[in-house]
């Protein structure tokens, strides 16, 4: 099969085959991360705009690294320095960026749907690097790659996601990916962060507010960041959150012994996660970061017109 998408706006619209294909392509780039000389010339002469209308360090550096390793140039726009502060509309800003003739635009924005809005108005591919409370598709894909690496499969997994689900674009992208592989997904967290409508998003989902009920049998435990900066409603006292939902060694022990423990970062040790869990052998936190570069290389490569076969020889 080939990748026919013009944009990557979310994982919801991707089929299981398309996700499998994207992960296969990402694996081709994983090997490069382990080589002493990591730079390819595959995308030499191509350029990517990284338009970050919302503050980000990890994702922006990950995309920039991915582009650099493919030999592509990057142009950066950050919210602090952008013309949006001067009252320019998003459509005018991105049309200005497009006029500099990049081959792809990577966009992060605080408004859900902003990448869709941009994709409808530009003639170049758009990669969603996180939009509001909606999706963070490259995170969903890199998490799938990490799970697949550790457990040897993506099919039929018991997945427990713990934390602020309502405000999490990471949770949404992961739900759309893992449910397509038959995942049984349990959502666990404080009631006001667990919309009752959420299980309607995909088959085989349930809500379980009690963490000791949510973890037994889990192959994958995903701990979300407590995104205090995104909350508008009165937030939960941190001590209450720690008491009920912090991932401790005792709680993690309720999951399957070979369960992987994931966190999209940045993590706050002592709040949503006990440091002993963060540093445990079950934790995949740093592998997720490494895989992020491979997944983003694959996305940049495919969306700027690279043929799938050309990537394969790079596998190692």
């Amino acid at each position, binding site marked *: 099969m080939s990748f026919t998408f013009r944009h990557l706006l979310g994982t919801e619209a991707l089929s299981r085959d398309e996700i499998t294909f994207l992960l296969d392509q990402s694996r081709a780039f994983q090997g490069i991360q382990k080589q002493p000389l990591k730079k390819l010339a595959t995308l030499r002469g191509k350029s990517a705009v990284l338009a970050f209308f919302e503050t980000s360090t990890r994702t922006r550096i990950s995309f920039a690294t991915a582009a650099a390793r493919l030999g592509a140039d990057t142009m950066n726009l950050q919210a602090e320095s952008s013309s949006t502060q001067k009252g320019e*509309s998003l459509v005018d800003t991105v049309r200005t960026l497009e006029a500099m003739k990049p081959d792809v635009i990577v966009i992060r924005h605080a*408004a859900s*749907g902003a990448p869709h*809005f941009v994709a409808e108005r530009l003639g170049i591919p758009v990669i969603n690097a996180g939009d*509001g409370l909606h999706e963070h598709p490259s995170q969903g894909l890199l998490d799938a790659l990490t799970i697949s690496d550790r457990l040897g499969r993506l099919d039929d997994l018991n997945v427990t996601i713990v934390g602020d689900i309502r405000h999490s*674009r990471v949770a949404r992208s992961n739900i759309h990916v893992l449910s397509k592989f038959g995942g049984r997904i349990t959502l666990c967290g404080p009631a006001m962060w667990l919309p009752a*409508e959420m299980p309607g*998003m995909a088959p085989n989902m349930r809500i379980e507010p009690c963490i000791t009920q949510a973890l037994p049998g889990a192959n994958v435990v995903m701990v979300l960041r407590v995104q205090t900066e995104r909350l508008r*409603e009165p937030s939960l006292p941190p001590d209450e959150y720690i008491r009920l939902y912090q991932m401790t060694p005792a709680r993690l022990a309720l999951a399957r012994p070979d369960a992987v423990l994931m966190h999209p970062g940045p993590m706050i040790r002592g709040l949503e996660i006990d440091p002993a869990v963060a540093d445990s052998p079950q934790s995949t936190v740093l592998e997720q970061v490494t895989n992020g570069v491979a997944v983003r290389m694959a996305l940049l490569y495919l969306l700027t017109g690279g043929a799938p076969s050309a990537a394969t020889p790079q596998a190692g």
Partner: protein
Amino acid sequence: MEERMLLIHNGRIVDPARTFDGPADVLIEGDRIARVGPKLDAPGAQRFDASGLVVAPGFIDLHCHLREPGNEPAETIETGTRAAARGGFTAVCCMPNTQPVNDNAAVTRFILDRAAASASVRVWPIGAASHGSMGEGLAEIAAMKDAGIVAVTDDGKPIATAKLLRHVMEYARSLDLPVIEHSEDASLFAGGVMREGPTSVRLGLRGIPAAAESICVARDVQICTLTGARLHVAHMSAKESLDLVRDAKRRGLPVTCEVTPHHFTLTDEDVTYDSRYKMNPPLASRDHRDALLTGLADGGVDAIATDHAPHTQASKDVEFDRAPFGVTGFETALSLALEALVHSGRAPLSRLVELFTSGPARVLRKTRTIAAGEPADLTLFSTEHRWTFRAADSASKSRNTPFDGREFRGAPMATIVAGRVVWQRET
């Protein structure tokens, strides 16, 4: 001097105020209806052949935004009322949230002067309830009433506090004006952009629960009980709000309500990141929408109002979160109502006509009927005419409608205001 005469003949008169539905002619002399009856003979009269058309009393829109003064790039009284005429409306009530706010007689007179100079249909201004609609001191309501307002409201938001609402309603009662409420609890609204539900969760858009509206309707009905003033609930979108209004009516309280065409035809499932689906109140879930349709059919709802809310292309062509609330609505209202109520079999044609005529008229304590001596305001429409609405061809200055390109069965065909044909469809 001989008065200008116009004979509307061969039409089907549907006049809910007189519970009349049948073939009859209408003779207009000057700006009044002179005679109504079968096969009228009027030598020298200009003739309008209404064969195949419904002849209804002139439609009234209780809720629109004409944007003048202050936001003329989005709409003016001239362009807005031209669009209203194309929608079959003969009178429109314009909300006071202009710049400046219509909270004093000078602004009211400005609006009426502009209407006299440029409007295609009658303009009945609604005044602000509080100064600047800021929710503190009362506006100059009595002076505005003398200047010509027909109601008061702080539309765009509810009247801020129960205490202020009480004062407004007591005062409005003494002036015999209805108080129109945009019922919405600010703390539950909380920066939301669409109705809370499965779609808002999936799209990651901040949700507004239906209770944000009904909680405030409950408050408003309580103050109505306390004061006895007339309460009209604007653009109602929640089942529980309708239940509260029904209950208030049963108890004999002077409570009425309106529903917009977009709320009774679309649902939250239609929402995408396209800002043409962003309005306040937001589109309701299917069960709430169905409850509104039931209310329209059975009399629980008093009027269809458009909440025509034009916005410039530049202001709407932004991220969904940043876009202003509101959609245009004059030109599609009747066709949507025909589709949802009459062609669907939910309600007879006379009920639909009532929702556009005697229903809103009662809210304003006016009459709307086709009888000798009445003002010659008539709406002529077809229940069958097939047409496609094109936003680009709209008479409104703005294009922010979710119904662009929609094909309709049934359409306004001519609009008569004070005896003059102010618009007629080209076919």
